[in-house]
């Protein structure tokens, strides 16, 4: 699999995701400066990493969504290419109109960094093939503005089209107020684009790839991507 990680000024988890891609998907990504106009030819997967692009000034992801490279990312997505946006990357995807909705300030109005269980809503996508259906995985979150919101119609459409990728849950997979770490609508932690080729999520699977550092529940996402590419 040929992958590329976009670096915006203020990105800060680009090394983390590059390590996960290398370690779990066997793909050493191209590190791509936001000022570039094009993706390296043959790119299968574009990753928008976590961080605080442009200092989160104006609105999270709003300035990055207008970076030169984003035209190439939109074109890649339109061709059915895989795009993964994590945390700030999810915010950028929403601001880029590649995904619907918006990430608001956490309900408790504080940054939250903690371990977090997620329910994998479906395992028939390029991002989740290695997980069992309904699997509960233990990853982490680290964000101040991750409360997913959208108008009722959009939420209805996302739900009816099976486009919710992950939900915040407890260890048993139950959706409880305490397990919804930021007050997201329907405990939504990640969503797919209509074609299923673009995934945005707030949690950080890239930080859970190693038993020594908290566990390996995040590896599945990267292994799934590698497998999907091999199958393609």
């Amino acid at each position, binding site marked *: 699999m040929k992958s590329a990680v976009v670096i915006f000024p*203020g990105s800060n988890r680009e090394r983390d995701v590059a390590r996960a891609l290398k370690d779990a998907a066997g793909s050493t990504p191209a590190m791509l400066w936001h000022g570039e106009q094009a993706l390296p030819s043959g790119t299968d997967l574009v990753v928008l990493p976590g961080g*605080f692009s*442009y200092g*989160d000034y104006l609105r999270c992801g709003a300035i990055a969504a207008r970076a030169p490279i984003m035209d190439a990312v939109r074109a890649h997505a339109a061709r059915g290419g895989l795009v993964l946006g994590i945390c700030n990357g999810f915010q950028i995807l929403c601001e880029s109109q590649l995904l619907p909705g918006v990430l608001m300030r956490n309900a408790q109005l504080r940054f939250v*960094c*903690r371990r977090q269980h997620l329910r994998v809503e479906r395992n028939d996508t390029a991002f989740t093939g290695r997980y069992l259906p309904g699997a509960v995985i233990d990853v982490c979150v680290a964000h*101040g503005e991750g409360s997913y919101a959208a108008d009722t119609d959009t939420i209805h459409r996302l739900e009816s089209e099976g486009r919710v990728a992950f939900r915040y849950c407890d260890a048993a997979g139950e959706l409880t107020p305490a397990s919804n770490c930021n007050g997201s609508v329907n405990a939504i932690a990640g969503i797919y684009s209509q074609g299923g080729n673009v995934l945005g999520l707030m949690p950080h699977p890239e930080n859970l790839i190693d038993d020594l*550092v908290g566990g390996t529940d995040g590896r599945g996402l990267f292994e799934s991507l590698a497998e999907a590419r091999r199958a393609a």
Partner: protein
Amino acid sequence: MIANAPKITPELVAEHGLKPDEYERFLALIGREPTITELGIVSAMWNEHCSYKSSRLHLRNLPTKAPWVIQGPGENAGIIDIGDGDAIAFKMESHNHPSFIEPYQGATTGVGGILRDVFTMGARPIAALNALRFGSPDHPRTRHLVSGVVAGIGGYGNSFGVPTVGGAVGFHTRYDGNILVNAMAVGLVRSDRIFYATATGVGNPIVYLGSKTGRDGIHGATMASAEFDQNSEEKRPTVQVGDPFAEKLLLEACLELMDSGAVIAIQDMGAAGLTCSAVEMGAKGDLGVELDLDAVPCREEGMSAYEMMLSESQERMLMVLKPEKRDEAEAIFRKWGLDFAVVGRTTDTLRFVVKHGGEVVADLPIKELGDEAPLYDRPYISNTFEPVLTAAEVAAPMSNGAALLELIGSPDLGSKRWVWEQYDHLILGNTVQTPGGDAAIVRIEDGPKGITLTTDVTPRYCEADPVEGGRQAVAEAWRNITAVGGRPLAITDNLNFGNPEKPEIMGQFVGCLRGIGEACRALDFPVVSGNVSLYNETQGRSILPTPTIGGVGVLDDVAVHATVGFRRSGDVIALVGDTAGWLGQSCYLRDVCGREAGAPPPVDLAVERRNGDFVRGLIQAGRLATVHDCSDGGLAVALAEMALAGAVGATLDPLPEGLAAHAFLFGEDQARYVIAAAPETMEAIMAEAAHAQVPVRRLGVTGGDVLALPGEAPLALAELRERHESWLPTYMAGQGHLTAA
């Protein structure tokens, strides 16, 4: 001839924090009346914060050398060798005064400043810690200050992208008017790629990099060198504003520039901004410096030379570059969208010359600005020591079970989850031990090495006996590193005290330093960097003496380490070290009995070393994986923390005869560790301990969902957890009325 307006009056001199004799000293040095810019420069260089004029004499006595020390005090950060060509740069620094006035910005710029100190040396920051001291929870400002400081630390570190992996939070009424915010940063650098602040070569360009200069923070260092009074609120404009986004860009641009081979010397603009950084680079290299302020990128129009020289605008660097690499260097900075301007050059005159608008506004001897700063041997008196308090003099006011519930949910010992969940402690993917352990563990890149980090001090011990308190602070840092299996290597010290012009405060300072020095020598744990913060007083009331120690150790194999939580049922629990039941200055005495009295527990450094080496040896041999340092709150609190961390209960054996139960359970005797292991392993450990003359006493066994103390109703872990976790969130939600001392 230098034009001189306004006229320098005694009032103006006093406003700059210079004492009349200090001003006379300056006049004698330059042989004429200074310009206002020169007065500003000397006030910045000679204030307590920059010159260490009250502390220098005593700091000289600290041990700073060891075979693994690459850089001791005097640079932006200390550096130690951890093997394989890897080195760790680290330092702790206070931002107390600004954080009290404007908690969010004060804390952010504290974090920003210390991160810059580390990456200025070429090290990429890999971890941050902080030690915070707030006033009584009942004080009307405390909640606001906790909220602002924690948000500020998180706001900066999270955005910059460094994991905040550990620290300490404490409350005491003596910090009501003067909180402490001590921030520590730790960076990784190849030992042959370290950068220093020493300029070399005549005629080399001096380059200004980073954010623009504004009017913020002018005289911040002078503020940090004075006591607070009722009018301190008026000093808000001297607090700088942090921009972690700019700092992240500055980090990446600086590291890229260093890789390009263009950098001769680099110094960040911290306290007293352009003044301090330019003078230091020149003076260290035995060179003069000429600055042309017309080239300085400014945020506002019409800034005077005085303002530019004293601005403490953040996220700025000064570098001496190789002339032939200038264009390449500029391209790197432009790519990151940062300012780049040649603002001067090195000279062979040993003068610090500043030009503005075509005129010379300052012309001073560069080395004397640092070397001739006042040095005071301030008078001090040794403190009157509190008498030793025996266990018999402390009656137990409640059952031991009730006392444990009280302590585990007290402001100082309650869980700090509310704080550290606001810090991204997982970014970079190397945090092996997250907050809540004895010491943080951070893997070095892909391993197998790791480092272990802690911050420690027990201010109430330092107040009762500064020498013993100084020893204890170092010993506890050493012990916490040992308790995870690390080999302690070096410390940074952040010395927070009151007004040194008062002999009793100076006595605390001198005493603590003596204790720190003794412990560092005995434990081979040298001081490689540090910071002194004096004048921590408000309206004449001083803080508790608080010499915060930041310790760093190494793990050769990061996978081999110990953690706090009980792992399984059926393990035997044991206590390493002797227990005399020392209740003087204990948390039990303060929070359960309502008294702060007695001498603090003595630290026997030889015993400390013997017990610690024994425990570390077992961990490193892979034979022991459950260890907890026994400190605040004593044995009972340590056991409760182990049970909660592992979600496995414990039942204790009958307590020893001849010692009151509450003294055994809550005494704060030093050099102790609680350990747990399978019965057959523990049997072997105890046999070896007897052979090595290390006292090890069996305490009980793990298992169940209660903590059962002998003769007490068992305490459900759920209740302990509820108590432990609820105090801080409840308090911060505005519902807390618990009183700390």
